[in-house]
């Protein structure tokens, strides 16, 4: 243990200690940056319309987010088994979605929704998460529109 009293000044020991502290801080920052970049790549979930999902041929099992409208007349919820089914569409393409659990309170036919999950080999989307869009000013997306970040 170096002499604590003389360790903080501008003497030789001080400069060594100062370098050590600065290097440790730098290493810390670089380490966090590395973890952040890794996590960013590993956790990004692509956000697609049903049309884009079909065009890009998302592989079965790959996590994706689909945004669109719940098609009128398609929403089915089986209370006892809590089996949830609906069709999400963008006016051009439609995708059958199945999930387990009650639909979120804000989910309505004709309203916007975002589902996260994976496509099965049968082309049915298995949702692990169903999110109803509740914008301050509600407005259905125009047909074929990308679920834009600039939602109204």
């Amino acid at each position: 243990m170096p002499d604590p009293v003389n360790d903080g000044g501008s003497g030789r020991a001080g400069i060594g200690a100062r370098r050590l502290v600065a290097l440790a801080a730098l290493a810390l920052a670089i380490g966090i940056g590395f973890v952040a970049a890794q996590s960013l790549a590993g956790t990004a979930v692509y956000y697609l319309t049903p049309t884009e999902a079909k065009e890009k041929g998302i592989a079965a099992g790959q996590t994706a987010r689909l945004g669109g409208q719940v098609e009128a007349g398609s929403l089915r919820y089986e209370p006892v088994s809590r089996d949830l089914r609906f069709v999400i569409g963008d006016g051009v393409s439609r995708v059958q979605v199945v999930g387990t659990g009650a639909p979120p309170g804000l989910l309505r036919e004709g309203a916007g929704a975002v589902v996260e999950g994976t496509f099965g080999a049968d082309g049915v989307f298995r949702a692990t998460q169903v999110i109803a869009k509740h914008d301050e000013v509600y407005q259905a997306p125009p047909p074929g529109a990308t679920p834009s970040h600039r939602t109204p």
Partner: protein
Amino acid sequence: MSWGELGAGALRAALLFAAVGAGASVFAARYRDVRGLASARWCALLALALVALADLAMIGALVTHDFRIAYVASNNALETPVFYSVISLWAALEGSILLWTLVLAGATAFVAWRGTVAMPRLATTALAILFAMLAFFLLLVTTPAADPFAPSAFVPENGRGPNALLQNNPLMALHPPLLYLGYVLFSVPFAYAMASLILGEGGDRWLVATRRYALVSWALLGTGIVAGAWWSYAVLGWGGYWAWDPVENAAIMPWLTATAYLHSVMVEEKRRLLRTWNLALVIGTFALTILGTFLTRSGIVNSVHAFSLSAIGPLLLGYLVAILVCSSGLLLWRSRELADRGALGAPLSREAIFLFQNVLFVAATLTILLGTLYPLIAEALSGNQLSIGAPYFDRVEVPIALALLFLMGVGPQLPWHGASRATLERQFALPALAAAAGAIGAIIAGTRGSAPVLTYALAAFVAATVVQEIARGIRARGALHGERTAPAFVALFRRSGRRYGGYVVHLGVALIAVAIAASQSATVESEQTLAPGGSMSVAGRVVTLDAIRDVDEPQRRRVVADVRVSGPSGDTRLEPSFAFYPNATQPVGTPGISAGPGEDVYVILAAYDQRGKAWATIRTRVIPLVSWIWVGGAVIGVGSIIAALPPPRRRSVRAPAILEAAPAGAE
């Protein structure tokens, strides 16, 4: 005169006074002119009075349902209760900018009348900057960008009513004003810092003058964030309180940099180090408050909070860019005068811990910023839309938070300059034992996962350091002044409020950390569809659905599930519900919460039979210790008050006005 004319007129007059005040304070600072300062003061007071009048006019219009004003027509209805009419002042874009302007006018007037007494030249220059900012916001509210008093295109019979999510819970009265106060009060340290750079006063007088503003702003921001989490928990009905939503991120980022600043300030005060760094933190924090407003108000990122798209986005972006360019330019211009003399101490000194802590806080801020803005960057670069959710933030921020919790225990225990082995043993023997006990206790109690166990251990470590410090303080006072325990305890907090208030804040943070770890790792959830009379069992509780019924209220219709929760301590009745508002296309779910010190039972009506009310799907979450997050928020608030209160004056200390012995000063 109508409410609209009164409000719009008051804002225009306030804009005039803000502009004149800016000119007068520039003149007063430049020529050390007493009359200039007097004019600036009266301008600040009149601007404040006029903006307050405009805010009152808006409240008047809301309470009397004056639908001739577009804002009232779209955010109020005849059925809206008075309470929710009043708080609709901040329910949407234009009104919240109006409230923002009021707080900024208040801060400006306070600096004009109080700040300029102690440090005339510095404060008057800061005042000019505050007037300029006030003028910018008054421009926003007097032009179509965010005109709260814009007339309705046609006057409807009845308004649309406030946003359903906002009229569902009284916490909405607390959360936005706390955040706005916090956001806006940070303008004061920023203005002083800029004034110090403009005047070329390399010293830290600006920092001493604004320490309290920064602390109060930080405390309001922090309690506002906790209140927002509570609102989210009580209203949104998903059983959580934090979703890494862009707007939540926008609120926490300036809080993180402000926390870094409050600590690194001490390094500058004690060791005259980190001057440039502190200025950069103030600039960064202030820029992040504006970025937060921009993100919320421009609708540029997907968020539950997204306000409607408005012309205010580009204006706020321009303001943000102008602030960043001007402040960084000033910082570069003065960088040589700001160079530190002296060096940081040993790795085991308090200043070194503060440095690591600052690096971690800034890294947390930057990684949150990256995750928040990455979807925008990716879309601009590749055209792909993607989302960054909780997995990213949890993976990056949880380790940083744990490291910070550790440093929170270490920092205050280390002396400045460096510590000897004996000091280390004396300071850390007991806390290390407490940490080990915390970890072992958690494992015996059945905690799984390294993050929660580490959290409990570190929280015990922090709590032990605080208790040890207070006990030693009491003993020292007893030895020195012969005081008994209770008076010594009070005296510690009264006389060394900054230090011991800080310890109380640390306790609050440790409490929140434990509550987050417990609620995130040990929640038990079950979802079942029940017929009336049916019941489900969750974590030792029996949840029975008694009935499903309709409730008609003037402003809304509700479907309520009568639920009975039977536990070891008797029965509790809960009413999870859906509320249907005439202006909302979608119903709003409200959970039923039975809160307790050990755990909350959180019952959500997830779905129900809309035809015959023959069944309801009930989701029950038993969430341990979650209430302690809100308690921890209150503890942080109390600690901040203790730290912000001025210590009792000793007679030998002369008034601080003497410090400013400026030649031919403005006073």
